[in-house]
C-alpha cells in the first residue's frame, strides 16, 4: 500500500513537471513578443527592449523556466505585469470563491446524479427510467453558460428572487451564499446529467451480480440493497467519471464566474488575458492543470480505498 502510494505520488509529481514545461513552452517559446503585445505596435524598439530586460525575457529560456518553476515551488509566481502586485497574492485572494463554487457544484452534482441514476436503475425499463434517460440526454446537450443565462432570466429578471450576478464578499455570508446559488446550479445540472447516466449503467451492471440475489434472499429491503450493496460495487466507474468531472467543474467555474461576474480565478484569468498579463495567465493555467491532475491522482487512490481486492494487490 505504501509502495503503491509512493509510486503514484512520483508519477503525479512527474506529470506536474511535464505540465509546467508545456505551459511554459506554449507561453514563452512560441513565436511572438510579449513586449510587443504589452506595449503595442506603436512602441519603439528601445522601449520594448527595456521592457524585455525588465521582465527578464533577455535571458535564455531554460534559465527563465528554472527561475519560474523554482519560484512556483515556494509560492512565488512573480509580479503581475498589469496589477503590479505578486501573482500569488492575486490568486490567494480569489481562490476561496472559485474553490467554494467548484466544491458546491461538485456536491450538488453528486447528490443529483446519484439520486437520479440509482432511481433510474431501480426502475429499469419503466417510465421513470425512460424519463431520466431523456432528460439527461437533453441535459448533456445544454451548454452550462446558456443554462446560467436562462436561470438568470427566470430567477433574477422575471421572479427577482436571486441576484443576477456579482458577489458581495464573504463579510455577508447570507448574501454571498445566495449569490452562489444560481452559479452552483448551472455548474451542477449539466455535469449531473452525464454522471447520472454513468451511475445508472454502473448500477444496472452491479445489480446483475449474484450477491444482490443473496441480499434479496436475506429479506433486505430494496432500498438497502440498492444503496448498501449495489452502489459500492458500482462506484469504480462512477469515481472515474467524478475525477474527470472535477476537471469539468473547475474549468466550468471559469466560464460560470464570467456569466455571473464573480471575482474568482476565472475572472482573473480573463482580466489578465485582456491586460496581456502573460505571467499571471501562465500561473493560473498551471494551477488549473495542477488541480485537474491532482483530482485524477486522488481518483487513482480512491479506487484502492473502495476495493479491498485492489488493496491486496497494491501492496
Amino acid at each position, binding site marked *: 500500500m505504501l509502495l503503491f502510494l509512493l509510486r503514484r505520488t512520483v508519477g503525479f509529481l512527474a506529470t506536474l513537471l511535464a505540465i509546467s514545461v508545456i505551459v511554459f513552452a506554449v507561453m514563452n517559446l512560441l513565436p511572438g513578443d510579449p513586449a510587443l503585445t504589452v506595449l503595442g505596435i506603436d512602441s519603439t524598439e528601445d522601449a520594448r527592449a527595456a521592457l524585455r530586460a525588465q521582465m527578464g525575457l533577455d535571458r535564455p529560456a531554460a534559465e527563465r523556466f528554472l527561475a519560474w518553476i523554482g519560484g512556483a515551488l515556494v509560492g512565488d509566481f512573480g509580479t503581475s505585469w498589469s496589477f503590479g502586485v505578486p501573482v500569488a497574492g492575486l490568486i490567494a485572494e480569489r481562490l476561496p470563491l472559485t474553490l467554494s463554487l467548484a466544491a458546491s457544484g461538485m456536491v450538488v452534482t453528486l447528490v443529483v446524479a446519484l439520486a437520479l441514476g440509482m432511481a433510474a436503475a431501480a426502475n429499469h425499463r419503466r417510465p421513470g427510467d425512460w424519463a431520466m434517460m431523456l432528460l439527461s440526454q437533453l441535459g448533456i446537450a445544454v451548454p452550462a453558460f446558456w443554462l446560467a443565462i436562462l436561470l438568470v432570466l427566470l430567477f433574477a429578471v422575471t421572479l427577482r428572487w436571486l441576484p443576477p450576478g456579482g458577489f458581495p464578499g464573504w463579510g455577508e455570508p447570507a448574501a454571498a451564499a445566495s449569490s452562489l446559488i444560481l452559479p452552483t446550479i448551472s455548474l451542477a445540472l449539466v455535469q449531473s446529467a452525464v454522471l447520472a447516466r454513468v451511475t445508472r449503467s454502473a448500477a444496472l451492471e452491479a445489480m446483475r*451480480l*449474484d*450477491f444482490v*440475489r*443473496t*441480499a*434479496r*434472499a*436475506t*429479506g*433486505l*429491503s*430494496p432500498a*438497502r440493497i440498492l444503496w*448498501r*450493496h449495489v452502489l*459500492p*460495487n458500482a462506484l469504480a466507474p462512477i469515481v472515474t467519471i467524478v475525477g474527470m468531472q472535477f476537471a469539468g467543474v473547475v474549468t466550468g467555474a471559469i466560464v460560470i464566474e464570467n456569466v455571473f461576474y464573480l471575482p474568482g480565478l476565472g475572472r482573473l484569468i480573463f482580466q489578465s488575458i485582456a491586460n496581456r498579463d502573460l505571467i499571471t495567465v501562465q500561473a493560473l493555467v498551471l494551477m488549473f492543470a495542477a488541480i485537474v491532475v491532482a483530482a485524477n491522482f486522488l481518483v487513482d487512490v480512491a479506487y484502492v480505498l*473502495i*476495493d*479491498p*481486492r485492489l488493496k*491486496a494487490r497494491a501492496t
Partner: protein
Amino acid sequence: MLQATSLSVRLPAGEALRGVDLSLAPGERVGVVGESGSGKSMLGLALMGMTPASARLSGRLTLDGRDMTRARERDWRALRARRIAMIFQEPMAALNPLRRVGTTVMEPLRVRLGLTRAEAGARALALFNEVGLPDPADRLRQYPHELSGGQRQRALIALALACDPAILVADEPTTALDAEVAARIVDLLVRLSRDRGMALVFISHDLAAVARATERLVVLYGGDVVERGEVGAVLADPRHPYTRGLIAARPRPAPRAPGAPRPRLAAIPGSVPPLADLPAGCRFAGRCPVERPECAARRPAPRPTPHGLAACHLLEEGAP
C-alpha cells in the same frame, strides 16, 4: 409446512415449471435433480418468491398455511431468511466482494432481528462456529477473496442460518467445489438440518450428493416432475426413462480400466431444449430412447410406482 400444489411458472419464453407438487414437513430433506434447464433453479426461486418480474405463477403455494401464490414482494420479504432461506451455486459471486464476511452475516441480524452490533457479532461468531469455520473470529474480519471456496460456502450457509429459518433451499451448493470439499458441505447441511430440525431442499444435478443429503427425491425435466419417491429406492430402481438416463450418465470412477477414457457425462444425447421448443406432451419426447408416437402430443399423468410416482406413458395401464 410448505406445500406447492400444481405450481406453474410461466416466463415470456415459455413455461418453466408445469404443475409441480411438492410438500415439505419440518426437518424433512428433499432432493431436486435434473439437468440444467430442467427448471430446478426456478423451483428454488419460486419457493423464495424470487421468480423474475416477468414470471406468472399459477397453482398454489402455501407457507405455514398462508397462500403465497400471489403474495406481494413485501410479504415475501418478511418471510425470507426468517422462515425460508437460500444458498446459491457460486459462493464467490454470492458474497459482496467489498464487505468483510462478518459484516455480511451480521447485516440480517441487525436489520431483520434488530440486534445491537455486539449481539450480532456474538451471534455471527456462534454461527461461524456452527458451520465449522476454523478460527471463526479471524474469518469474520476477512473479505470473500481471502477465503477458500469451501469456507465461502460455509460463510454463506451461516448467513442463511442467521435468522433461524425453518426451511433451507440449497441451489447447487456443491457444484463449484471440488469433490472432497463438496462432500463435507453436504454432511454439514445434513447435520444442520438434523440439529436444527430444519427442512432442506437440496437442488443438484449430482445424484451422489443428493443421495447423501436427502430422504426423498424429485426428478425434474423441462419443468415437469417426471419421477419422485424415496431417494435410495428411486436410484436403485428408476422407473422413468429420464431418471434412468440420469443415473447412467453419472460419472463412476470405480469400474474404469487404467488409461481408459473417462465415461461421457451425458449418456442422454442432446440437452434440454429452450423453453419455447419444449414439446407440449411429455417434455422428454425427442430425447427419449423408448419414445412412442403419442408422447410428444399427450402429457402423461403421474402413475404410482413401487416407491413413489412417475409420469410416463409406458407406465400407463395397458402399455406393453
